[in-house]
């Protein structure tokens, strides 16, 4: 199991959120999620300016095997999307916590961050999944 960066927060459904210095939040899917999905071949991105609610479907990632909704860990407004994924969706397979980010949000309420899982809690969760 690869290291989970300590500055991430997680949803049980395998999305991560990172608060950037700018205050915006970057969202992606976990290393574990990409390995479950296998080779990604298509990402449906939200549009900049879209209003998104925490727990709501914000993007779709499709592998050869399956299509999967990406739920937003937080509520807010989309400020940017990772256009590079249009041509290279496999970037998520290669670097789920870095270059494979999906979108950024201007969040409505920083308190929502407290509802998310810490890296350790998330690691424990996927550990349990394995049994």
């Amino acid at each position: 199991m690869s290291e989970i960066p300590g500055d991430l927060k997680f949803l049980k459904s395998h999305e991560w959120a990172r608060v950037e210095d700018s205050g915006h939040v970057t969202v992606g899917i976990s290393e574990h999620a990409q390995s479950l999905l296998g080779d990604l071949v298509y990402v449906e991105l939200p549009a900049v300016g879209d209003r998104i609610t925490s727990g709501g479907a914000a993007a779709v990632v499709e592998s050869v095997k399956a299509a999967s909704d990406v739920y937003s860990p937080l509520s807010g407004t989309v400020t940017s999307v990772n256009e590079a994924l249009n041509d290279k969706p496999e970037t998520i397979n290669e670097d789920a916590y870095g270059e494979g980010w999906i979108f950024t949000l201007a969040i409505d309420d920083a308190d929502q961050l407290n509802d998310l899982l810490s890296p350790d809690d998330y690691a424990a969760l996927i550990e349990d999944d394995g049994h």
Partner: protein
Amino acid sequence: MTLKTVYNQSHRDLGAKMVDFGGWDMPIHYGSQIEEHHAVRRDAGMFDVSHMTVIDLHGEGARAYLRKLIANSVEKLKVSGKALYSCMLNERGGVIDDLIVYYLNDSFYRVVVNASTRDKDLAWMQAQASGFDVSLEERADLAMVAVQGPNARAKALSLLSPEAAGPVGALGKFMACDADGLFIARTGYTGEDGFEIMVPEDRAVAFWNRLLGAGVRPCGLGARDTLRLEAGMALYGQDMDETVSPFEAGLAWTVALDEGRDFIGRAVLEQQLADGSARQMIGVVMDEKGVLRHGQAVFAQCGPGEILSGTFSPSLSKAIALARVPAGDVGAVEVDIRGKRHPLRVVKYPFVRDGKAQPGV
């Protein structure tokens, strides 16, 4: 209960991601489904297909039995070792399963049916056998490996004794023979050349390891599915089932309406031919980004239909699918993906043959 093939530990040792496949614990991939797909298109890959069901038919009545049991005609099998692809139909003309039958001699045929349909196939085949001088023997003692790709035959042949390599190397397509205690058929489910090899279980792992040593890449059922769909080959349960006739699954070429042969389901097929009522299977590609998947609704001029097998084609880098629509002019076709309509192009399939995209795809 989870069924395991003799290769279960081999898959795990190779780091396979295992999934449940019709009750069998099988490898979906060993790291990258797409790389495995390309290995078969460009070099050589191997698949554990030991979960498939092998049934030997013995008896003087085997030919007469098969004349009744399947929609293709065993009269086409004149040379020992020749294989025939066919559907086995119910009385309503629906497909119980698709299968391959090998002719070995007049009182010995070998049939390979799907894994997921094993129980109902055996029950049906046994029930139809009454009145014929034929006995059914399931060969659970045989493991099976499909070695596929442009270099598959050469790599497999390099592992055979000189006495065996000669005749096996000379096998024509859709022919099989015994060699070195293996049953080797020049057949497959990928659109590439290669062999499907039945191995006695006690030698199976050693044989797999020798293939690995010869540079044949292990490939999971994920790649097997994208390869077979690119090759335009139907998958039972997805492209056809007991409510679908072979005509409605693009399998008219496997139906022999030869004079005087009363096979099960024939009357319904003749009726469909006479009144033109059969739905039709079409091949489609999507030039927009996205992935076609089983169950998506499609809209053609002739009426609504659905995507049967759909996937992202690694060879073409776009989505391809088989779809079933009503009889009539197909016209322009659209698919509904998550509530949005996207245009599809209707194309002739196979989509890919001998490693290359087919014209118009």
